[in-house]
């Protein structure tokens, strides 16, 4: 049981915990947009933590693959979340909002410019 294997286990467990929280969020939150928060970010952050755990477990030998995977995750996760929620708003899915309301709808909705 070396130091790095302990760190690796901790990171993998933390990543799994993050993903679990994301799943809980999808189950618990009220509408499509709030669920998108949970589904996109928690999944990506959990996966990044698991990948860092892999990096520690392999003594840094797989660093290039890990770096590549993290970069791809960091780029695709926000883009997908943005694209899906924007498409939802354009298609007329109303967000369930609190007292602050929906500024995008007040400003005339999403349109091309």
């Amino acid at each position, binding site marked *: 049981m070396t130091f790095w294997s302990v760190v690796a286990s901790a990171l993998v467990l933390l990543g799994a915990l993050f993903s679990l*929280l994301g799943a809980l969020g999808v189950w618990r939150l009220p509408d499509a947009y709030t669920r998108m928060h949970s589904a996109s970010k928690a999944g990506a952050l959990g996966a990044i933590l698991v990948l860092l755990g892999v990096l520690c477990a392999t003594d840094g030998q797989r660093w290039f693959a890990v770096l590549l995977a993290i970069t791809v995750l960091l780029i695709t996760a926000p883009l997908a*979340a943005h694209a899906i929620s924007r498409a939802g708003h354009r298609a007329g899915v109303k967000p369930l909002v609190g007292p602050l309301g929906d*500024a995008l709808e007040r*400003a005339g909705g999403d349109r091309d*410019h």
Partner: protein
Amino acid sequence: MVFVHLLLTSLLSLGYDGATLASWLLAFVLVYVLLKLLGLLLPVCRVYAMRVEAGARFVPWFTWKVFSASLDVALIVINPRRQVSSAVVQVKLDTRDRRLVTVIACLLTLTPGTLALSYRPGELFVHVLDTASADPVQQAIHDIELRLMAWVYPMGGKPGGKHDG
């Protein structure tokens, strides 16, 4: 410039012990010091070194932001009685550079609790998971923008045509 840096770093660490992570990082720092010294003579190197410094400040700061925001969202999700009050807020942006706006929106969407919905020149529409007012969101985005500007344009002011490092 960033390619020169990466190339020199990779060559140095490859020549040293076949590019393990530790030697690569060490070589990266060494080449940075070299470029910083060269910056006394060449303005290009000086600007690049400042950019590396701003980047080195930005990345840990942003990682910390993401994790503290994750904790907030996690607390919301685990507490069964907590009702979220989400909102779509309108946020002002100073920059009109569409590439920068794209990066800001991506970083914003990576931070738990905020999600970029739509953009019009000068303003961003952000879906916020749980907020009572628009001010903290505006403040957070302004913070990201300022630090990103320090990274991309280290000399301040409006940039010219050249954009890569």
